[in-house]
């Protein structure tokens, strides 16, 4: 309090607006969700019936929820893992001393400017079972006709690939920035000392990139768990047979479509806990292992 002599209440007054916004839009709805998660809500007559832990117990017994849970994790691992590997490779290639590297950088990055909805429409047209360009190409070449409207695996792969594609631009921008921050002298010194290109990458470049990687892993986790919604809604609406009904989409469907608000509230509380744990672990491990000093 000594930092603001004679202004005892000023600091509080200054933070009040943001605290108010957070309280109204984050804390209050969150409390509401916890409260609802212990209730069954009759959508027709709006009665709340206290059911204790029943929503939670039934959730973990429900094959649909476990299926969604499993698929969400596979999806997240693929989006984060493959997405980061591919974008790192592309970033490495575009930062080489080649002609037109600036052009390539822009060409790979601009896709991030596209809204997930447009990207979703595009991908679903390319793979439309009857008129899709890729469907026809693959079908004519291999004899296998993809129909993501009823093929659960095809739908899952399509959504995963499209989600990775949408996020590529963002990841590449950060990787390029990270790579350009690696001092050239260090790499040069290493190669003079006889390190191979591979060794230079693993021993010099990659550790220096680790803060970027840590940041991107976190951003991509949030993306995979929450922001995949738009794409799923446009491409598959969670189908076929719920194969692309990821946790966040399931909450929406259960809450607003299937009119099971209590159950949806319980799911959102569980999803919050999952993300909190995953986030905490990521931040802990990455701050431990990332090299921040230059």
């Amino acid at each position, binding site marked *: 309090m000594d930092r603001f002599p004679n202004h005892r209440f000023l600091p509080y007054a200054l933070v009040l607006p943001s605290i108010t916004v957070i309280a109204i839009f984050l804390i209050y709805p969150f409390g509401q969700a916890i409260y609802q998660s212990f209730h*069954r809500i*009759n*959508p*027709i*007559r*709006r*009665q709340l*019936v206290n059911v204790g832990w029943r929503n939670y117990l039934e959730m973990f017994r429900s094959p649909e929820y476990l299926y969604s849970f499993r698929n969400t994790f596979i999806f997240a691992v693929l989006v984060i893992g493959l997405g980061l590997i591919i974008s790192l490779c592309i970033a490495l290639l575009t930062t080489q001393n080649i002609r037109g590297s600036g052009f390539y950088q822009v060409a790979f990055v601009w896709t991030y400017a596209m809204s997930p909805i447009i990207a979703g429409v595009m991908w679903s047209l390319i793979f*439309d*079972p*009857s*008129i899709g360009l890729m469907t026809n190409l693959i079908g004519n070449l291999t004899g296998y*006709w993809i*129909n993501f*409207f*009823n*093929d659960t695996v095809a739908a899952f792969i399509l959504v995963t690939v499209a989600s990775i594609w949408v996020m590529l631009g963002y990841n590449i921008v950060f990787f390029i920035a990270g790579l350009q921050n690696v001092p050239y002298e260090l790499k040069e010194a290493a190669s003079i000392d006889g390190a191979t290109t591979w060794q230079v990458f693993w021993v010099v470049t990659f550790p220096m990139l680790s803060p970027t990687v840590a940041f991107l892993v976190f951003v991509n986790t949030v993306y995979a768990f929450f922001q995949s919604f738009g794409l799923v809604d446009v491409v598959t*609406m969670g*189908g*076929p*047979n*719920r194969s692309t009904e990821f946790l966040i989409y399931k909450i929406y469907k259960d809450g*607003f*479509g*299937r*009119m099971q608000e209590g159950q949806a509230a319980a799911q959102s509380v569980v999803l919050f806990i999952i993300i909190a744990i995953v986030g905490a672990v990521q931040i802990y491990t990455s701050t431990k292992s990332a090299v921040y000093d230059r």
Partner: protein
Amino acid sequence: MKNLSNRILLLSLVFVLVLAGVASAKVVEVEFWHSMTGSRLEVFKKVVAGFNEINPEQQILPVLVGTYEEGLARFLAAYPVKQEPGIIGVYEVGTQAMHDSGMIIPAYQIPGMLGQEWDFGQYIRPIVSYYSKDGNLWSWPFASSTAMIYYNADHLRQAGLDPDKPPTTWDEMHEYGLKLLEAGVVKNALSFGWPDWMLENQLALHDLEYANAGNGRLGYPTEVSWPNEFTDKLMTKWSEMAKDKVWIYGGAEYNANGAFQTGELTFLMQSTSSLDGILKTVGDKFEVRTTFLPRLNNDYPRGSSLIGGNSLYVSNQVSKEELEVIFEFFKYLSRTEVDVFWHQNTGYFPSTNAAVQALMNSGWFKDSPNHLTAFLQILSGKTDSDASAGMRMGVFAQAREWARDAIEKISRGEDQRAAMEYSAQQIKKLLEEYNEFIN
């Protein structure tokens, strides 16, 4: 001086604003939540604008609230906090939920509440019977459709088939499909939207109930009637057609339309509300024709295809002034010229007897026979049995989802009986919970 002129300016501004406020206070505005999208949206906007021009003091404000599913969920959530609209267009799936909600004024009571009279006999019977409870109409007829077959007549000619004799049964559909594939005209012959609704239509078409308790019309149903002997036969047929690549699964809603419009499919089973969109997109590229839905065989009695689309509900929290506007709007919708315009530009049914007569007199059905198909199909069928009038279920939306779940599995070649049974069990659980809540 400058200060003074500024002050005068401000004062006059305030004055104008106050005047405007006084003037607008007389205007009664009623929100109308709807789910009209695509080519229907423009037509819908014109219809509403037409009403708003008549009397500037009575205004309808259309608000697009997303899909039917989302619109209904929003209405139910908005009502307790008095944020709901005066009118909402609810899909046929929400009928039971709206009846049970206690949030609406049944349509038949509206004229009486305003001390007026209205002849409900002017509406087309199948629509009235679908939306009626105990013989009274509960929601205002608006955008009613049904399902039918659209087909590419050029494809049939190319395969040496007679376009004047489209398939009437599922066996014929299968046979035609195989011929089309053999002739190399298409890769897949048939697809459809709303597979869950198609199952409902097939049951009603054969006068079979979807759920117990008189198809949900005599009480609260406790389970669905399927799988049964009929669905066994039908689903076996569908899975054979999928295996032969005659039928390709076309997604949940309107995705298959694109393939039909580009000439990749010969047959499309879809809502009549797609008619004008399809006709406009196809243009002169090929000859679009329409016909009745196929039947399994004639061992089963004849029912009718089902009414779909949406009808209009009125919140019971509206003021008397608002109710007056709403009733004026409903009367406007029932005007012959408005009803005719709506039908001619969307493919939805004309809802009044007078509109049908006007259309007939003007030679519309002769010039555009595709607009007559669905109408004949529904008028020539039986709609006075519980089975053919349409089912009522509080958890209809989820039941549909489970039916679609089964059809998706069947289209992939999974065992039809097991798939249907699993879905039926899930619906049973949902019905139990709903009934527990209601009683």
